């Protein structure tokens, strides 16, 4: 292959992936025919799972390699377009694919922080980092820190930060893998995790970056097709226009009009909504009343109340014509009654909060920072802006993304490649808001007002699968569905769209395969980043610089296995909530990496001590704030300026930048060699240039 020119390679790749896309579509059609022939849905789920995981493993086997440059940076000949697709898949995680549209459905404008943050960050990648890192041309991000700042300390902090944010992030991905496989095949969560992991490992284990790159391109194609088909269908159903991104402005107007009707108690439907909200309000007050009584009366109150229930049940049973259902309900009330004060407090607090959430009027989808007064509005706006900034800067500092720009053939291609990356990511991200609005329109107009005896089939089927994703209860017993009676989990939106749009089950399987592709591709990139940081930066650069290449690769593969198993083990413990893990990874990367990387290119005076101070102070501040304020850790200290813990990077970043500046100014300027190296990365090509490229 060495004799092959880059343009031949490019056209060959285009041919391969065109065949592949055609083959994939043919596969979907075959599964659709199987469905028509009456093959059960569960079997179709297995077929999709098995076929895609085998496909990724197959690409892994075909791309196996023992060459260092192929293993770490795919031989540095990935054309811009394909690197863009691979970055897209690497980037878009389970959270983007499944969670994003749901977040937008639930929080309207305020959810756009994720859309803006996860795309706008690429401007920083393109303008501040990618071309310079490509010119530098080694294997990992800590490599750059090591060469630019000298010594092992900046490199070690880089390794620590890379592992910290990648590991936090990879747990969220593996969790997504387990969720999807278990939901669509009925396998147990932990088994689902290991099946998915098998697919990841065969691929990255055999071929490192090379295999991961070509698998990610394949995964991108699956995930974008899977995302688009149901949305386009839904758009045609509601607007007659197959371009949802253009059509949904009109749907949004209708949703807004509908919100007004439902919020207005003088209309018949609005009155019904108000009635349901009133019932929830009463429930909230009852629960709060019980909490207060418990605080005053303690265990005695509990015993007394339980006695009353027992008496009521006994009285009921004593009646000769007692309704068996009522007796069962009374018995259940007795057995369900909280056994001690702690359980009682927890149960009632939950009940009060659950009911309270249902008492608020419908939030307007397109209204930014809705709040009851100016202070609430300001707080929301502040957090929105802070989150956007953290996600953007975090994007420009996550090592698994930056690493991808080492794989292009030149600086010029690296610049173009960032464009293709964002373009492919953009295709999904500017569709997600359309999907959220279209789904909302469906729920607000078709589901609300329908009769409980004739619920749409997708509602019944999802309510049967998981109550937290979809549940409807007739609160005011009028037999008609009110909006306040519906509970929807965010993940439902993407997963149920095919059924909402009235598409056959094969499309649901396709969406599951897409979600799996998104989670697996991101997990692949992250695991590789962690294993490379350990094998390349720690083992080769710091412990044994004379290691033979075969040994380096063997160590890297061994570590990959260990890290993957460790991550799967941690995931099976189900720690914390996914959105927080993802957000934490971005804040950590933004605080730890970004200042030292960007100033390393743009400020020659930045030196070793500045980098050490900046990185450790930035990371430290970010971790400290998260530890003090995130409820998971149980400290619950007051927030600084009302900033939520997910945006902890907003404090870490300035501290990091200040740290680099102060540390550098207090110590001597970097040596001539280092300054030459900065010039070297600034110009794509110089006469008598030095060479920092790794073989």
């Amino acid at each position, binding site marked *: 292959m060495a004799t092959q020119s880059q343009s031949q390679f490019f056209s060959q790749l285009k041919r391969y992936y065109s065949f592949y896309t055609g083959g994939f579509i043919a596969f979907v059609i075959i599964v659709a025919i199987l469905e028509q022939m009456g093959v059960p849905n569960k079997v179709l789920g297995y077929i999709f799972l098995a076929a895609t995981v085998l496909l990724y493993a197959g690409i892994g086997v075909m791309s196996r390699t023992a060459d260092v440059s192929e293993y770490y940076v795919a031989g540095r000949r990935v054309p811009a377009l394909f690197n863009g697709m691979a970055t897209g898949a690497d980037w878009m995680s389970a959270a983007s694919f499944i969670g994003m549209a749901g977040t937008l459905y639930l929080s309207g404008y305020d959810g756009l922080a994720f859309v803006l943050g996860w795309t706008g960050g690429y*401007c920083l990648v393109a303008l501040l980092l990618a071309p310079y890192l490509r010119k530098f041309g080694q294997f990992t991000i800590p490599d750059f820190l090591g060469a630019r700042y000298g010594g092992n300390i900046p490199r070690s902090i880089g390794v620590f930060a890379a592992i910290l944010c990648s590991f936090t992030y990879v747990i969220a991905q593996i969790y997504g893998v387990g969720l999807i496989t278990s939901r669509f095949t009925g396998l147990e969560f932990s088994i689902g995790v290991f099946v998915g992991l098998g697919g990841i490992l065969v691929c990255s284990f055999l071929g490192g970056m090379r295999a991961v790159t070509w698998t990610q391109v394949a995964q991108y194609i699956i995930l974008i097709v899977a995302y688009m088909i149901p949305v386009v269908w839904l758009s045609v159903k509601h607007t007659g226009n197959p371009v949802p991104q253009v059509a949904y402005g009109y749907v949004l107007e209708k949703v807004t009009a509908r919100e007004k009707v439902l919020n207005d108690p003088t209309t018949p439907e609005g009155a019904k909504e108000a009635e349901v909200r009133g019932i929830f309000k009463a429930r909230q007050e009852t629960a709060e009343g019980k909490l207060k009584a418990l605080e005053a009366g303690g265990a005695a109150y509990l015993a007394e109340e339980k006695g009353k229930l027992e008496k009521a049940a006994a009285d009921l049973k004593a009646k000769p014509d007692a309704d068996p259902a009522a007796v069962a309900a009374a018995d259940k009330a007795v057995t369900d009654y909280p056994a001690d004060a702690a359980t009682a407090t927890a149960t009632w607090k939950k009940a009060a909060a659950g009911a309270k959430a249902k008492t608020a009027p419908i939030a307007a989808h397109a209204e930014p920072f809705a709040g009851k007064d100016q202070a609430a509005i300001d707080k929301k706006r502040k957090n929105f802006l802070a989150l956007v900034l953290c996600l953007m800067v975090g994007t420009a500092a996550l090592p698994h993304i930056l690493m991808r720009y080492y794989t292009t053939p030149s600086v010029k291609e690296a610049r173009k490649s960032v*464009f293709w990356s964002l373009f492919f990511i953009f295709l999904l991200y500017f569709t997600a808001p359309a999907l959220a609005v279209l789904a909302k329109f469906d729920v607000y107009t078709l589901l609300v007002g329908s009769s409980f005896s004739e619920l749409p089939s997708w509602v019944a089927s999802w309510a049967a699968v998981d109550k937290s994703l979809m549940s409807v209860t007739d609160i005011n017993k009028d037999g008609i569905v009110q909006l306040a009676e519906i509970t929807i989990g965010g993940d439902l939106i993407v997963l149920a769209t095919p059924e909402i749009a009235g598409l056959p089950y094969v499309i649901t399987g396709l969406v599951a395969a897409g979600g799996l592709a998104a989670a697996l591709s991101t997990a692949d990139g992250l695991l590789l980043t962690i294993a490379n940081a350990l094998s390349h930066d720690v083992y080769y650069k710091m412990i044994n610089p004379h290691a033979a290449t075969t040994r380096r690769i063997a160590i890297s593969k061994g570590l990959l296995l260990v890290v993957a198993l460790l991550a799967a083990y941690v995931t099976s413990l189900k720690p914390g909530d996914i959105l927080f893990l993802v957000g934490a990874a971005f804040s950590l990367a933004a605080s730890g990496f970004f200042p030292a990387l960007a100033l390393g290119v743009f400020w020659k005076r930045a030196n070793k001590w500045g980098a050490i101070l900046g990185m450790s102070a930035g990371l430290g501040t970010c971790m400290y704030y998260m530890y003090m304020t995130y409820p998971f850790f149980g400290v619950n200290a007051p927030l600084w300026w009302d900033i939520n813990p997910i945006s902890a990077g907003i404090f870490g970043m300035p501290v990091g930048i200040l740290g680099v500046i102060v540390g550098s100014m207090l110590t001597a300027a970097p040596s001539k060699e280092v300054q030459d190296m900065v010039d070297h990365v600034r110009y794509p090509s110089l006469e008598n240039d030095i060479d920092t490229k790794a073989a």
Partner: protein
Amino acid sequence: MQLTEKHKEYWQKNLRMTGILLVLWFIVTFVIAYFARELQSVTIIGFPFSFYMGAQGSLIIYVAIIWYYAHYMNKLDQEYGVHEGDD
């Protein structure tokens, strides 16, 4: 390795373009989001302006920023003779 005046000029031009594009990036992201409540009464193809920018408009501008930077710099490389050989 000695940098000539021409090299310095190349870097200055790069910095200027980077700065301009970053300002644009900042405006479409943070300035518009900051005034989102004030801007929502303006309508663009059926959308309230602030919602449209957050969901689509700003994204399109991001893609354009990156495309333009790649185009501008790849041309500047040629102009100042710092481009790479053919790969």
